């Protein structure tokens, strides 16, 4: 299969075959039931432990749909996905196991507006990981300190700026101590002056060795932080390269066209 050989090429060029595979997606197809739209048309991607992969591509190309299959927010009809060695089937047990290991940060933050910042961060550890409340709060406070919003712990999301809300959302996902973090355009809904604080948080997370898949159009972030950049267009991964090669020496016309639009 084309997708599989592409993955193999990348592994060879990166010489990472010895590293643990955290996400393996093989020839994933998805049709939206409502309109028979073939949104993912055979996508393959392997992400190894500690790797940061940036996904770029025009709007509507299926980036969100693709990364949302990793934590089963989207179903798919054909192909295989395994996350941290767990095969993603339609079995609910697996879904629960996978969601515990995968944190996700959304474009619109999706904080729970009726809960305080601290409650947002401790809810899942207490009820899903079954942590003691005091323990969960201690971890939450550490994370909030790490993302720089410790003083806001008792406030409600509506009282925070967009950048602060997104950092709370990152802390909330980290509180579950995931092995993988997915970011779906985490800075697209932010005012320009707040983009940096969120990217800085993501960068320090990457430096700590978190496995990350980020849909973002922040070229600076991709150049400095990503191990690999992939371009998605019309439901296919058309280019996969190290950031330097991706931005300076793109192989595919589709990539060149896309880069000419965003650079």
């Amino acid at each position: 299969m084309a997708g599989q050989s592409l993955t193999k090429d990348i592994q060879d060029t990166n010489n990472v075959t010895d590293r643990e595979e955290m996400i393996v997606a093989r020839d994933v197809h998805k049709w939206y039931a409502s309109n028979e739209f073939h949104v993912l048309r055979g996508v393959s991607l392997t992400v190894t432990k500690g790797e940061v992969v940036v996904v770029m591509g025009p709007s509507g190309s299926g980036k969100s749909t693709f990364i949302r299959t990793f934590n089963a927010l989207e179903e798919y009809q054909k192909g295989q996905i395994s996350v941290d060695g767990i095969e993603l089937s339609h079995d609910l047990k697996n879904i629960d196991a996978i969601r515990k290991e995968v944190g996700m940060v959304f474009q619109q933050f999706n904080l729970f507006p009726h809960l305080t910042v601290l409650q947002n961060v401790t809810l899942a550890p207490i009820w899903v990981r079954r942590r003691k409340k005091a323990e969960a709060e201690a971890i939450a406070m550490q994370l909030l300190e790490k993302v720089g919003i410790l003083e806001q712990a008792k406030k409600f999301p509506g009282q925070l700026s967009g950048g602060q809300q997104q950092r709370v959302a990152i802390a909330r996902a980290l509180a579950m101590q995931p092995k993988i973090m997915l970011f779906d355009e985490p800075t697209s809904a932010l005012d320009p002056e707040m983009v940096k604080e969120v990217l800085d948080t993501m960068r320090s997370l990457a430096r700590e060795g978190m496995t990350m898949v980020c849909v973002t159009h922040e070229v600076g972030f991709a150049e400095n932080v990503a191990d690999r950049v992939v371009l998605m267009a019309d439901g296919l991964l058309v280019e996969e390269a190290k950031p330097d090669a991706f931005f300076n020496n793109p192989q595919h016309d589709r990539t060149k066209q896309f880069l000419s639009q965003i650079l």
Partner: protein
Amino acid sequence: MTTITPQNPNPNLSPPAEIQISPINWVMKNLLTPWYNALITFIIVGIFCYAGYGFCVWAFTEAQWTVIPANLHLFGAGRYPSEEYWRLWVLLSIIVIFSGISWGIVARNVTHLFSRNVLIGLAIAALISFILPIPLLYKLAIIGLLILLSLAAWGGQKIGAKMPGLGQYIAINWFLVYLIGLWLIGGGLGLEEVTTSKWGGLMLTVLMATISIALCFPIGVIFALGRQSNLPVVKLFSVLYIEIIRGIPLIAILFMGQVMIPLFLPEGMRPDRVLRAIIGLTLFSSAYLAENIRGGLQAIPRGQTEAAKALGLNPPLTVSFIVMPQAIKAVIPAIVGQFISLFQDTTLLSIVGVEEFLGISRSVLANPNFLGRSSEVLLFNALGFWVFCYAMSTGSKYIEKRLNVEH
């Protein structure tokens, strides 16, 4: 401090200081200019004065208020045996003390518990109790209860400030008060038994309304969720229930409960008539409540459930911690509106012969001694209902403000 009780998210922001204008200026500006505004003002004020004058003339010269004090026990408790009244007074005191304590605990962070509005409210309540045509002893009793309420609230605030975790236990304590109340009213377990046929008046109205409200709420939540369910059978059943109940007038449901159930079931197996009334009211209200809550559920953005899923919360946890609290918060005004109409709908039971507040008034008016006193009695009824409904709507506004629905 770390519980999931909603707190006022914005305690530090006070509203901007109002610009002071003199009352005369305000009247000139808002009521008297331009000329047609002045005309409308005069016409409306004229109508009010005319009607008010007519009412006062009637109330102080023609009306014969003796009908109220003469039947006060009937209005309050129906045909409840007079030697057991003390039980109702004990219950009333317990309720008042608990209301005060709950209020104090909920408002533990408020600096001035007895704000100007609260003081005015208490003063008006005391004033009304003095205007009411009731014996002096009762006036003093009402004022005593008001004082008890204030003391309990003051104490509750002190306790609440010391032990902030107490807020969680208010609901369960009210449930206990409820059980104690039913025991005090109905007897048994060492107290003289009083059958429901002797319950009546305002006591019965409040009892039926509060039990129905407490029951219809969870049932409404369940049907609202059922209607959104992916399971076809659950969904169909919920839709059928909601649509059938909403298609039947309440009075028909109550008639079925009071008149038809006895035809089907043999003597001894029939549920008690007060119970039948409560079941009818509950079934009816829960269908409307389910629709209100469904409206709230639809207002929750999809991102909320997605975020919950991504965190690994399963559907029951997502519904109880994320979806339902926000849905209910969004429709509090509609829910309280439903509760208020439920309270007033209890009056329909007077038609099927249950002697609640309005029903007992019909019995009083049927007494030849009080022939033609319907204006006085109905006015008294209206006042009674208004006090409770106004209290509910004030409570709803208070809760809304605390939960800060608008943000």
